[in-house]
Structure formats: structure tokens, C-alpha cells
């Protein structure tokens, strides 16, 4: 087992907010001492609502912000003592983009590589190969401002990969893209990991993105890590699947609920009108058993198994829905 590529301990960031009017100056704790361990070759999703501390954490790990406390090593280099070596090890694709609209794509790539000390010729070869891998053949001579949103985003990723970093940080990479471009972007991000074994640290407030892309998730809220694990683990931690049984009447539903708890053991059963809602650890295996033993003794008009979504996870962990936060 190799050493983790990112290891943060009690990483903290506080801001002083100047008071306006009658308000006294105060300190805001944007990140309240987070521990993060990421192994090589992982795609880790960093999930949280806007303002949860995602970007602040990311900006600390990419040397753009000095932590107020705690320590971190990135690719074995200490963030505080050797930021230049950290910078050499990482690529960072900021939310706001990376390229000047009036600049030519190929030139931006070459100049970016040269800032890492890479020879112009090597940079051009590498840049063309990268673009081709990202389905961006033929944009080398084009101005960045003329590219579509999805193309520009993939170019941003190419900019972040041109120096072949061990770790790439992607901040909200799919914001503002249409569904097709997003799915396409996800494919490319997976390929970056598969082909180059690059560790990918990706922040998002989209549940589907975190679910589709990440090997592992960190959930952050109010500056604290409130959950970590694979999407499956996190979903299981919220109490399992829901089995929904539809009966013929409210009375029948109550009888059905009693019968079902007798079969499956003592578990939460809610009756709502003619519907029974059972929470079980594993819906897929509970359902056949339930239906077999209920037999013909109860009228069941419909069944459904609802797997928890990351939205449910988020709701359980933070007491509010991610979607609420967006609005």
C-alpha cells in the first residue's frame, strides 16, 4: 500500500469579516479542521452545498490559500513548507475556467506547459495528444472564445493535465453544461484516471455527478466532513432501501403492515392511506421473501423498491436537501 497522495490533518480556514454598519467584525470559520486522506488513482468526489467549504478546502490544497491551521501533504510535499513542489505535482481546473477567450488554444497549452519548464516541442506534441484524447482534434488553431461550453471545459481539463500531474483537482467541472456534454465529460475524467493513473479530486454539488463518477465520496457541510465512503456505503448508512406496498384500503394496509413486520422482523413500517412503507437493509432480497410468505392472505396491488439516493444521504447527514441549497 503506497502512501496517500493527499493527506490533510485538521486543515482549517478562518476569515475575518469586516463589520458593516452596526455589525461588529467577526471571524468566520469556512473550514473547521478537516481530515482528508486520498490514495493514488482514486476518483474522490467532494460533495456539499454551495458555501459548505468545498472550494476553500480545494484552494488550500492547491496552494492558493494559506490554511489558518492544520497540516497537509500533497504528493508527499508539505503544503506550507514546499508549495512549489506541491504546484509541480498538481493540476487545477478552477470553476471559472482557465483560458483567455482571445487566446489560441494550442498556444495557451504550450505556454502553460512552459511555465512548468517543459520544452516547447514536447509541450506541443503532448498538447495535441491530450486534445485528441479529449475529442478536441482540430481546435489547436482556434481561439478559446469560439469553442462551445463543453469544448472549452475539456480544454480547461487539458490545461490542467499538460504537465502530467499526479493529482488533478476539478472544481465543479460540469456546471453550466448540457446533459450530453456532462456525460461526455465524465467519460473523459474516468479515462484520465484509467489511462494515466491520475488521482482525481472533484468537487460538485450535483448528486448524479458524485454518484456516477466517484470511487469514494467526502461529504462536507458547514466546513466539516459529515460523511465519507463509497456511494453504496453512504446510501446504506442512511438506513437502507424502502419497500413500498400498495394495498386496497387503509384498514387492509394496517393489517398488511403488521403481517410484513412479523415476516421481516422488527423494522420501521409506516402506513400512509393505503400504502405501506417499510425500511429494510436490502430491498432486493427482502421483497421475494415478503411476497412469498404473505402469499394470498393479503391484497397487494403494487410493490416498489426505492433505493436511497445521495440526496437522501445528504438529507440525513445535514438535515436539508442539496437541492434546497441551490435555490
Amino acid at each position, binding site marked *: 500500500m503506497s502512501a496517500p497522495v493527499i493527506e490533510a490533518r485538521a486543515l482549517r480556514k478562518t476569515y475575518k469579516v469586516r463589520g458593516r454598519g452596526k455589525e461588529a467584525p467577526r471571524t468566520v470559520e469556512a473550514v473547521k479542521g478537516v481530515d482528508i486522506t486520498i490514495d493514488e488513482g482514486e476518483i474522490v468526489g467532494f460533495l456539499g452545498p454551495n458555501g459548505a467549504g468545498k472550494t476553500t478546502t480545494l484552494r488550500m490544497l492547491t496552494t492558493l490559500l494559506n490554511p489558518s491551521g492544520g497540516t497537509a501533504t500533497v504528493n508527499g510535499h508539505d503544503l506550507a513548507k514546499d508549495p512549489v513542489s506541491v504546484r509541480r505535482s498538481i493540476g487545477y481546473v478552477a470553476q471559472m475556467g482557465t*483560458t483567455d477567450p482571445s487566446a489560441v488554444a494550442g498556444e495557451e497549452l504550450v505556454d502553460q506547459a512552459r511555465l*512548468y519548464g517543459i520544452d516547447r516541442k514536447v509541450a506541443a506534441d503532448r498538447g495535441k495528444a491530450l486534445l485528441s484524447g479529449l475529442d478536441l482534434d482540430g481546435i489547436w488553431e482556434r481561439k478559446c472564445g469560439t469553442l462551445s461550453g463543453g469544448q472549452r471545459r475539456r480544454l480547461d481539463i487539458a490545461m490542467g493535465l499538460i504537465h502530467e500531474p499526479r493529482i488533478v483537482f476539478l472544481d465543479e467541472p460540469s456546471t453550466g453544461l448540457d446533459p450530453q456534454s456532462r456525460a461526455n465529460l465524465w467519460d473523459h475524467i474516468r479515462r484520465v484516471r484509467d489511462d494515466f493513473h491520475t488521482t482525481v479530486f472533484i468537487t460538485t454539488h450535483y448528486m448524479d455527478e458524485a454518484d456516477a463518477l466517484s470511487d469514494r465520496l467526502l461529504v462536507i457541510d458547514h466546513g466539516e466532513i459529515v460523511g465519507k465512503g463509497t456511494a453504496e456505503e453512504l446510501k446504506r448508512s442512511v438506513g437502507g432501501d424502502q419497500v413500498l406496498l400498495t394495498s386496497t384500503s387503509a384498514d387492509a394496509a394496517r393489517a398488511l403492515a403488521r403481517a410484513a413486520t412479523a415476516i421481516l422482523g422488527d423494522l420501521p413500517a409506516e402506513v400512509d392511506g393505503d400504502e405501506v412503507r417499510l425500511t429494510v437493509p436490502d430491498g432486493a432480497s427482502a421483497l421475494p421473501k415478503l411476497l412469498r410468505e404473505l402469499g394470498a392472505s393479503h391484497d397487494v396491488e403494487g410493490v416498489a423498491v426505492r433505493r436511497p439516493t445521495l440526496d437522501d444521504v445528504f438529507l440525513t447527514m445535514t438535515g436539508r436537501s442539496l437541492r434546497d441549497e441551490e435555490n
Partner: protein
Amino acid sequence: MTIARDTWIIFTRAMRLSLRQPVWVVFGLLQPILYLALFGPLLETIADTRAFGEDVDAWQIFVPGLLVQLGLFGASFVGFGLISEWRSGVIERMRVTPASRASLLLGRVMRDVVVLLVQGTILVLVALLFGLRAPWWALVAGVGTVALLGGCFASLSYAVALTLKSEDSFAPLLNGVALPLLLLSGILLPMSLAPRWLQLLSDANPLKHVVEGVRAMFRGELTDPVALWGVAITVALVLFGIAIGTRVFRRQSA
């Protein structure tokens, strides 16, 4: 020297982007000519008032003033470009590379200084056609001094722009600073016409001494204390500007 190499990369990139804007190139070259053609003729009348001193050539007074004005205004506006670069994420992207923070500033300032050298040279050459008489080395020294001065204003402009990150607050601030600097510099009218309190204010304006220094050069008095003082102030201003600018580029969350 990694800082020299990084500065060169930033400089060539900035220069390439500037040259690719045809409007920018044309107006950049046209600007000094406009100054000469539309303002110069007024000067010959003013020189007759003898306010600039006895027995002086109007163009020797006027062209140094124009050069300094070019340095002030040409360089002060560069911050606007930086705000749009910041907005498109370019600055942040470069700050995550191992490039030295100072080079991110110096490369851009170098572009601005080169632009001023070209504009200043055009201004002086056209002024020769209009009737300026001055030794060639005075012209070289004058243009060089003004380009250096521009380096100071460009650095400060970048520093302020990167701090404010908003055109809406940058523009009024720029006007609020550049206008009094111009009015108190004796570029447009000789400060000898001013009341005492205004003259005192003007003496506190470093630009005034730079203008007088370049005027002394144009009179052929390159080693005159006034000329040397002007150069010394310019060098001090450049060092000050770069120090401030580097600080801002180095500062976190800039």
C-alpha cells in the same frame, strides 16, 4: 534563472495577445499622433506668453509633457485587461503553476513598457516632423525614462486591479488618481502660472519632477541636476511600483 524564463513566457504571451487585437494596435500607434496634431498647435501660442521661461522652444516643452502623459495614461489602464484575465481564470491558473509570482507581474509590465517604447518613439519621430529640435540622445533618454515611468504605473494598475477585481470600482479610482496627477504635473500648463498653494501641491507630485527632468534632457542638459533628479525619481517609482505589484500577486487569494 527561472524568474527570467517565466517572465519571458508571460511577456511573449501577453505581447502576442495584444498584437492580435487590431483595434488596439491601431489606436495605440495613433494616440501619440493625435496628441501632437490636435494639441500641439495650441502650444506655439502658449509658448509666446513666456510662462515656460525665456527663449524656449514650444516643442521642447510640449513633447516631454506629452511623453509623460502617454506614460501615465497608457500604463494606468492596463489593469482593465488584467481584470478580464482574472475573470476568465487565467490569473488563478497561472498562480497554481510553479512560476514565480513576480514573473506573472513582470512579464505583463514588460509588455507595457515595450508598448510605451514604441509609442514614445513614434511620438518623438512625428514631433521631429512638427518642428521639435533636440539632440538624438536626449530623445532616447526621454523615451527611456517615460517607458520606465510607465512600468511603475502599469505595476500599480495591476496591483489595484487585482485587489478590486471590478471594472466598476477600478474606473472611478483610476480617474480620481490620474487626473490630479496630470493637472499637478505642469504638463498642460506651466505651474509658474499657478498660485503658491497649487505650486506646493505640484512640488509634491513626483510626475512634475519627471516632466521637468525630461524637459531638461530635451534642452540638452542631460547631466543637469533637474534631469538626474527626474531619472532618480523615475527609478524609485518603478521599484516602488514593482514592489507593490509583486506583493499583491504573491498575496493569497489575489
